[in-house]
């Protein structure tokens, strides 16, 4: 039975970080920004941000100097991606990816709600850089932001009145699937098929939407791009680290079940973003394809791939969870593992077979009883699915599970002795409703 109680949350900028927020409205403007009309009004947007300064090849130069990387999880250098598509001639296509897929991530929805014009500016600027005449914006409809699609459509209408946009923008609604935002799944959906990942033999920058070279960027990446097009590379680098410059949006889950979206500089210590007091037993960094960290370890680390990757986690799409001490880490891990197994596209044998097997075994581990056999099986299956799917779903799932088993080792010992230390049985980590039919992938 899935409980679907909506949880209220608010954008909360970090206290006193200089130069922030850039993408989302400052706290003082929040009440005003909540008024739908403010986000939508193109003229108000131009008054706040000004006009674009760098366009075309000059923009690509600035992007390269700025070192902007993708904010959708893969962190690929943006300038390189654009150059790869730009070199392919005039029949190129652009897609903005707002399909977060992660139940725990709402930063793209927040961005599209509060600052749709930054995303749409970025879409136009990127389209100009690759000489594309059509751009697609791919997004979920989300309950926390009612009528998000209509909101973006209203923003488009506001721009249409001004007449400055050159590329036509088409909205495509993504199904509420975890994998819907995967690059090749996006291309499949826009091409009219189900939103399932495809073989990587022909990369999308060669053959994508309608068979044409396609550039896909996360909506937050496009928003940063729109600001770099105004303020330049040096401005972008004024926050963040040398290796990972700029700011990023995070969806922060507190141990009290409150969730907020925030914008922070890369390289910010995790203990400034999360309350890591006694009520917290572990930290998840990078969402459900990310990695678990012990609180002690998390206190030593910053929000950067340079530090998180060696620790087995990652920045990913900026999902940070402070996991409460009162909950059972193993039960929550098993619940998410079941979710990830359900969300397999079911195209590749190892994933289609392996993930349900892993989830089934973890459901036993989640109970207060010895499960040594099941743990051995999980480790075997984890080795069998890694790298054997068409996308990184099995790999990400294994990273999530393996790090959880490591961080919650103490709880495993408790369960093996027939005990569970958890006092709070209410579900904590969000999962969404399972797909019932083939149409749930469209």
């Amino acid at each position: 039975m899935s409980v679907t109680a909506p949880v209220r949350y608010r954008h909360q900028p970090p206290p006193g970080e200089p130069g922030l927020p850039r993408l989302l409205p400052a706290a003082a403007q929040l009440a005003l920004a909540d008024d739908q009309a403010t986000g939508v009004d193109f003229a108000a947007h131009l008054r706040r941000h000004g006009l674009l300064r760098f366009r075309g090849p000059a923009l690509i130069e600035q992007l390269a100097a700025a070192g902007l990387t993708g904010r959708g999880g893969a962190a690929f250098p943006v300038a390189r991606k654009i150059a790869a598509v730009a070199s392919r001639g005039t029949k190129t296509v652009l897609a903005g990816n707002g399909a977060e897929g992660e139940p725990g991530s709402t930063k793209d929805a927040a961005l599209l709600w509060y600052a749709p014009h930054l995303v749409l500016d970025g879409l136009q600027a990127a389209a100009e850089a690759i000489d594309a005449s059509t751009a697609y914006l791919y997004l979920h409809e989300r309950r926390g932001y009612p009528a998000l699609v209509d909101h973006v459509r209203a923003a488009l209408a506001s721009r249409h009145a001004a007449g400055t946009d050159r590329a036509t923008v088409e909205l495509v609604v993504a199904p509420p699937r975890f994998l819907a935002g995967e690059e090749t799944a996006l291309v499949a959906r826009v091409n009219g098929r189900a939103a399932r990942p495809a073989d990587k033999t022909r990369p999308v920058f060669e053959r994508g939407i309608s068979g044409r070279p396609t550039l896909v960027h996360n909506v937050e990446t496009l928003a940063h791009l729109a600001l770099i097009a105004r303020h330049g590379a040096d401005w972008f680098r004024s926050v963040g680290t040398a290796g990972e410059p700029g700011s990023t949006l995070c969806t922060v889950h507190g141990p009290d079940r409150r969730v907020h979206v925030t914008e922070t500089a890369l390289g910010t210590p995790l203990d400034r973003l999360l309350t890591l007091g006694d009520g917290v037993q572990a930290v998840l960094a990078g969402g459900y394809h990310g990695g678990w960290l012990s609180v002690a370890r998390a206190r030593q680390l910053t929000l950067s791939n340079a530090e998180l990757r060696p620790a087995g986690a990652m920045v990913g799409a900026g999902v940070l969870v402070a996991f409460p001490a009162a909950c059972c880490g193993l039960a929550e891990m098993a619940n998410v593992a079941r979710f990830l197994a359900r969300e397999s596209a079911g195209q590749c044998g190892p994933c289609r077979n392996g993930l349900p097997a892993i989830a089934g075994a973890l459901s036993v581990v989640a109970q207060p009883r010895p499960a040594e056999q099941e743990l051995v099986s999980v480790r075997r299956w984890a080795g069998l699915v890694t790298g054997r799917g068409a996308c990184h779903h099995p790999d990400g799932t294994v990273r999530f599970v393996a790090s959880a088993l490591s961080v919650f080792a103490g709880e495993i010992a408790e369960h093996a002795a027939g005990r569970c230390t958890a006092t709070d049985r209410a579900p904590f980590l969000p999962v969404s409703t399972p797909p019932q039919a083939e149409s749930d992938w469209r």
Partner: protein
Amino acid sequence: MPEKPAHGRGVQLHVSPIACSGHGVCSELLPELVTLDEWGYPLIAAHGAIPASLARTARRAVTNCPALALSLRPARPDPRGNSEEAQRPAPARPGILRT
């Protein structure tokens, strides 16, 4: 579409995970390179190029795959280099995840 490898460079056996439905013909033809996991899907020894002695059988496996899931790709350089070990195909064993 798989490209023909340049003359002189080796080829590697590649399986499309989406097309593969676990027929197992490849593991019969190339037991040195392919074993099947517990669900019947192929585990291909990944290191370096296919030895010349198996090249023809590999092409046969590609043609005979009922699902058209196999292809021959230009081999990427073996991370182990040109050592004696690198010349032998690695045993197709599933990796065990160490945590």
